[in-house]
């Protein structure tokens, strides 16, 4: 009888469920893919139900349910911080206490009720230990430094660990309220984007600016003695119920950007007046400064990790590990020969880490093979999809196993296609299972996909996917970035010779967040790109997540059809079905 472990992350953002069978990942999926609420924080009941169904079991067969945090330690931090910031925390205290006393403090009971498990079957793993386990145990490394950097868990906001086979030992930690993740989020909010959603936009915006605010912003974030500290006078997350920044930040950096304000820096000043261009450029420069600080901080932490732990490999996790530009710098300039980042490096990944921690560290089981693919989520049987397409009266053709080649031909013909193939990806990146694909050569494709298909901000870049055999012809990928590039977690330079060719996927600063596609782990997606390459001479496609603005990545054929009809996509592929637009 195999041992099943259900890992759960929830109640902050990006809740998820992961099911292990004897330590092997059977299914891993975020709740948002079912509820259709982006970053859904609710207990992942639907995700868990799907995981169990995928394995053909019921909750009675699950030996352990592991939650990715220790709730009482988190409560301790909230209470202690409220006292330490008295009387400024007068508004935050009642709000926190209502949430905790009314609900979060009774987590074990809530988990038992929601998932139907017995109380003695519920385990709790520390937040940063969940992150560390999510980065180390699925990696190919048996001895590695582990660096976790996020907003905050219980107390730790940054932590350093050493992983050796099935054990993970703590080395050091930086504690709340000093937090790189919260710092970046505060700048994200200042730049008019939603926290936990707009951080990627700040990264994209940064490329349009120059880091000319270092003098001001170095007063906020100081790197010292291998770690960092913040000047907390400029921030409010430790005492205010909803704001990240204190009024002093606005005095230092100028007025915040209003959400939705057009962004027209000097590089793309279409139709904007001088004042608008100057304002946009200022925001771009702020973004560039914050981004440069984060990159340098990550390098600084990585060097400290090397000095303290001394291994050849570094595993990174936490929300900041999704900063692909910083990852590239750690890989290219850092002291480690190997860098490994799990595709769901943020809070969703805590579900995976918590489950693996229980399997290896608590139950003492040996390590298994490394995680090589991210298609661990939901899929739909072909007959169900055919039935749906028939019922909706869709214009479709069953192209069988030729779908990748047909898709490659369509891309070569200039079509923008929705590509839904097999199981959806684990983590925020679309890696060729729930992707919008297009020809990467034409700069106008970027505007078409941004404005006509995804309805998102025109300054945001698109990523390229390249077949592994030709990756080095187009991109400068350091050896340590090879693994992160598989999951699109590293942004590096496009080779000078390829920048003109890849006009739609080369960002304004000459970089791209490349995905290197391996025929062994992504065979059908590899065939799409190869066919496109055979037709055009460029084995690279533009790849962006298959979702519309404000919505999660599509999961089911119904989601795909709804997004297809509401967008300007030319064609939709769902597994073997090629769907045309309704007349």
């Amino acid at each position, binding site marked *: 009888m195999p041992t099943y472990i259900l890992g759960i992350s929830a109640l902050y*953002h990006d809740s998820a469920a992961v099911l292990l069978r004897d330590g092997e990942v059977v299914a891993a999926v975020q709740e948002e893919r079912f*509820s*259709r*609420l*982006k*970053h859904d924080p609710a*207990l992942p*009941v*639907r995700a868990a*139900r799907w995981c169990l169904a995928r394995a053909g079991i019921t909750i009675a067969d699950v030996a352990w349910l*592991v939650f990715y945090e*220790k709730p009482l*330690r988190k409560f*301790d931090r909230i209470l*202690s911080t*409220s*006292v*330490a*910031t*008295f009387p400024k*925390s007068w508004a935050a*205290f*009642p*709000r926190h*206490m*209502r949430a905790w006393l009314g609900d979060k403090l009774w987590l*074990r009971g809530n988990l038992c009720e929601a998932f139907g498990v017995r109380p003695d079957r*519920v*385990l*709790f793993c520390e937040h940063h230990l969940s992150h560390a386990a999510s980065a180390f145990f699925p990696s190919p490394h048996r001895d590695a430094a582990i660096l976790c950097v996020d907003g905050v868990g219980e*107390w730790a906001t940054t932590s350093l660990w050493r992983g050796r086979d099935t054990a993970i030992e703590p*080395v*050091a*930690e*930086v504690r*709340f*309220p*000093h937090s790189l993740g919260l710092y970046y989020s505060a700048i994200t909010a200042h730049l008019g984007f*939603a926290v936990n959603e707009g951080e990627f936009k700040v990264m994209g915006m940064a490329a349009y600016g120059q880091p000319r605010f270092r003098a001001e912003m170095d007063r906020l974030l*100081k790197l010292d003695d*291998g*770690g960092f*500290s*913040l000047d*907390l006078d400029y921030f409010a997350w*430790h005492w205010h119920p909803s704001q990240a920044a204190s009024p002093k930040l606005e005095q230092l950096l100028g007025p915040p950007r209003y*959400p*939705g304000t057009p962004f027209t820096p000097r590089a793309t000043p279409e139709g904007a007046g001088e004042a608008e261009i100057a304002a946009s450029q200022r925001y771009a420069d702020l973004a560039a400064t914050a981004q440069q600080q984060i990159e340098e901080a990550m390098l600084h932490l990585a060097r*400290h990790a090397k000095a303290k732990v001394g291994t050849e490999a570094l595993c990174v996790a936490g929300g900041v590990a999704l900063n692909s530009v910083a990852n590239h710098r750690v890989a290219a300039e850092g002291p480690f020969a190997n860098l490994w980042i799990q595709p769901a490096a943020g809070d969703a990944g805590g579900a995976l880490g918590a489950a693996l921690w229980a399997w290896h*560290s*608590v139950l003492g089981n040996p390590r298994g093979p490394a995680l090589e693919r991210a298609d661990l989520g939901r899929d739909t049987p072909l007959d169900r999809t055919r*039935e*749906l397409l028939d*019922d*909706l*009266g869709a214009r479709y053709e069953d192209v069988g196993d030729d779908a990748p080649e047909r898709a490659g031909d369509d891309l070569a013909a200039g079509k923008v296609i929705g590509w839904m193939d097999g199981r959806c990806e684990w983590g925020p990146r679309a890696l060729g299972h729930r992707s919008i694909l297009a020809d990467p050569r034409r700069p106008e494709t970027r505007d078409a996909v941004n404005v006509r298909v995804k309805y998102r901000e025109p300054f945001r870049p698109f990523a390229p996917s390249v077949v592994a055999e030709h990756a080095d012809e187009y991109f400068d990928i350091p050896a340590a970035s090879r693994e992160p590039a598989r999951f699109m977690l590293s942004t590096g330079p496009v080779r000078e010779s390829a920048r003109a060719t890849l006009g739609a996927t080369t960002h304004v600063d000459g970089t791209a967040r490349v995905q290197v596609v391996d025929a062994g782990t992504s065979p059908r997606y590899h065939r799409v790109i190869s066919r496109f390459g055979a037709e055009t001479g460029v084995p690279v496609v533009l790849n962006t997540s298959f979702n519309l603005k404000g*919505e999660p990545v599509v999961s089911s054929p*119904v*989601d795909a059809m*709804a997004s297809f009809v509401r967008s300007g996509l030319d064609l939709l592929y769902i597994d073997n079905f090629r769907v045309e637009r309704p007349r």
Partner: protein
Amino acid sequence: MGVLRRMWLTVASEVSWRLPGRPQRLLAAFALAERGSMLDMLAAVEATDRRELRKKYFLHALDEGRHALVFAERVRALGQLGRAEAAIEDSGKLVEAGIVGGRTLFERLGEPEFLTFVYVAEADAVEQFRVYLDRGLPDTRTQDELRGILKEETFHVSYSRAEVDRYRKEGLPVDWWATRLRLRRLWEGWLRFSRDFGAVMSAFWLGVLYLLVMAPFRLLARLEPGGWQTPAGRPGGDPLVAARMEG
């Protein structure tokens, strides 16, 4: 339409649309409700066994998605957004999708009652929009949009009414369901009021607690310093026992 309900809608609409900042918040609430309805209808497309209804649910969902965009666009056009802007930009605010305890509205109600719900909700929305238009609210452009939306809502009412009539002929208690749904709305309104009132009261008493009990501890409490710290010690012994602990 009941006289009482019309009176209520008239009074509420006058208040809602004429207070500064309220139109934006109201339209943002409509945008969220329409988006939530879209998700409910897409969940129904996935879950229904009645294949002949799938396309209707799907078209209904697309209409609701479009309405959400129209309302959100009107919010932006009216400007001075504040909280309304956050609500339409941040899909995390979406609480109207009908998922409770991991089950969608369709799964909780079952198809006949779900269709009754659709009929009641759509018919009420039509009445509500008509009152706004009769009173010339809120502005010419939004009224034009409301007229367009009304046409599509009328289709939703007609197909769901046909299904409700069919269930009625089969002897299912659709009128009781409709009454129960309306009563449930009143009950949920009461619960919302109670929750808000409870929040105010608890904020007051927790504020008192904060001032009286927490203040002395301020002298002892300090924020953590920056930089690397030594991690807190972990409990030894059986790892399973430690793993069971919440703290």
